[in-house]
């Protein structure tokens, strides 16, 4: 039997190999370790977003809603009910999946921009709900504080030693990306990509499009929720500010710069964007101005993102989404 080793898998594993040994050289530099943890959290989230948008072609803008719902769920069940944070992360992920399926239901008959609107409504509604639910213990607009730390046996993680957090983020984000990778290249992924390329053709060939679209919503919300749950315990404090526009745009840029529809471009994009963000920090108020300019130039020069630009995937699935959408528009509704 022939075992196919995909370039996507090689890049993915190579990145994690580097991440695995990086602390050997950086363990004294808590600042950089901290940034790397953030990169893994947001990079994994961007990868899941890319899975939904780039591979399944569903324009969802509700990913931060899932992230925050899971973060609060995990934070609250562990803080108030004394449940283990590890279990809390899982419960948070499941809660996000439920919300994902619920928000997916009204999207079943919609396409493109309309799905973007409905899912962004989730993004917008979560922050006011957290504030209103202050009496339930969400912490309102100040945020949920003193979220229990992770622990392993007798050892409890602390902010003074980031290395255990680093390796936990590494394992969790690796598992999330592995699920994304496995799904993309399984028959389930074939279904997603087929529905993205031509929904009508896919339907004539016997796919239950409702089942598959709900699966995309549920799975992507669950995986995003797992990262959200981890983040809550790592940060120790979460607030509705997580739903601000700045981090939303940063994660979106990770996906675009890394290469939409190309695994694991968004994860790579996470490191590029966050380190660029740190690098430009001394510019203070001018930071976003320069940041914006760099992004515009990068998109102009490499419209398919970094991995797409390197053209190592022979254009396999790295089809630009915008070109794709335009093509769909021209063929839709013509006598079918």
């Amino acid at each position, binding site marked *: 039997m022939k075992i196919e080793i995909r370039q996507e898998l090689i890049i993915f594993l190579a990145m994690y190999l580097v991440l695995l040994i990086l602390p050997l050289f950086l363990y004294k530099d808590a600042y950089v370790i901290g940034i790397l943890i953030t990169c893994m959290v947001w990079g994994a989230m961007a990868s899941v977003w890319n899975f939904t948008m780039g591979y399944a072609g569903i324009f969802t803008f509700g990913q931060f809603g899932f992230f925050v719902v899971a973060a609060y769920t995990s934070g609250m069940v562990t803080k108030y009910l004394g449940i283990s944070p590890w279990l809390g992360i899982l419960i948070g992920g499941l809660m996000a999946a439920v919300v994902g399926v619920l928000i997916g239901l009204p999207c079943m008959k919609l396409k493109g921009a309309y799905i973007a609107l409905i899912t962004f409504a989730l993004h917008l509604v979560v922050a006011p709900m957290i504030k209103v639910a202050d009496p339930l213990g969400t912490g309102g607009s100040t945020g949920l504080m003193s979220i229990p730390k992770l622990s392993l046996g007798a050892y409890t993680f602390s902010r003074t030693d980031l290395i255990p957090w680093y390796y936990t983020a590494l394992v969790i984000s690796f598992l999330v990306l592995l699920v994304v990778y496995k799904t993309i290249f399984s028959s389930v992924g074939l279904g997603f990509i087929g529905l993205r390329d031509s929904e009508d053709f896919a*339907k004539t060939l016997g796919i239950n499009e409702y089942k598959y679209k709900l699966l995309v919503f549920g799975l992507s919300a669950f995986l995003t929720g797992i990262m959200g749950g981890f983040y809550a315990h790592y940060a120790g404090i979460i607030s509705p500010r997580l739903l601000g526009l700045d981090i939303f745009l940063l994660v979106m840029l990770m996906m675009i710069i890394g290469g939409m529809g190309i695994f694991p471009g968004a994860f790579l994009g996470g490191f590029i964007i966050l380190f660029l963000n740190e690098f430009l920090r001394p510019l203070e108020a001018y930071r976003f101005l320069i940041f914006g300019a760099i992004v515009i130039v990068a998109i102009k020069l490499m419209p398919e993102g970094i991995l797409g630009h390197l053209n190592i995937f022979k254009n396999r699935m790295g*089809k630009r989404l915008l070109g794709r959408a335009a093509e769909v528009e021209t063929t839709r509704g013509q006598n079918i």
Partner: protein
Amino acid sequence: MASTANTNSKDERVGAQAPILQVRNLSKAFGAMLAVNDLSFEIPAGEVFGIAGPNGAGKTTVFNLITGFLQGTGEVRFEDKNVTNLKPYQICHRGIARTLQIPQIFSTLDVFSNVRFGAHFGNKHLKDGNEAEIIHRALDFVGLQDDKTAIAENMDLFHKKLIMIAAALATQPRLLLLDEPIGGLSPAEIDPLIKLIRKINQEWNITVIIIEHLMKVLKELSHRLMILHYGEEIRTGPPAEVMEDEKVKEVYLG
């Protein structure tokens, strides 16, 4: 695969078969316009049934109603079971496959994956071991075996049509609906496609309904021909007779 005698003539015995598809009082209105108006017809198993008519006659709408892409009134029975208003994927699982008028393929996937989609999702009772066999059989049959690793969007129109047909065959249908399979092809490409459709009918024992504008093609392929006009049946019968019909000449051929 049961191979029939190597003949180009149409099998005249199909009329004796029980109907595989029965359409009764099918109607569909778009606003005030009746796209399909109280249409009834039956197709015996093994037949190639042609549908023709002017633009806007409701031909594709009939396909969309049979395959669940549109909901209408009336009844559609397949193999004596009611399949009216089932969802497209359910229709496919029952054994009805179709191609689309404007070729639609999975453009970012390779040819093999396009066909695999049909074998995997359209074939409910397929065991994994058989999947590859079904795919290769479909690829061999339409002549795409050498192009199986090519990205579908890089193929020309003729090959895109072959991809659609191969994927449809991979669902192992008993009834295949072809929506203008010849449209847009060069004369040199038309002949091989006609031969292919005949082989689908005769060698794979698949009943075929074909919408087409080229009367030469319909005359050559179909056992019976139905002419539609404003969603209504003008005439149904053997192609030679239908084409001599005065009303058909007036509304369509004239």
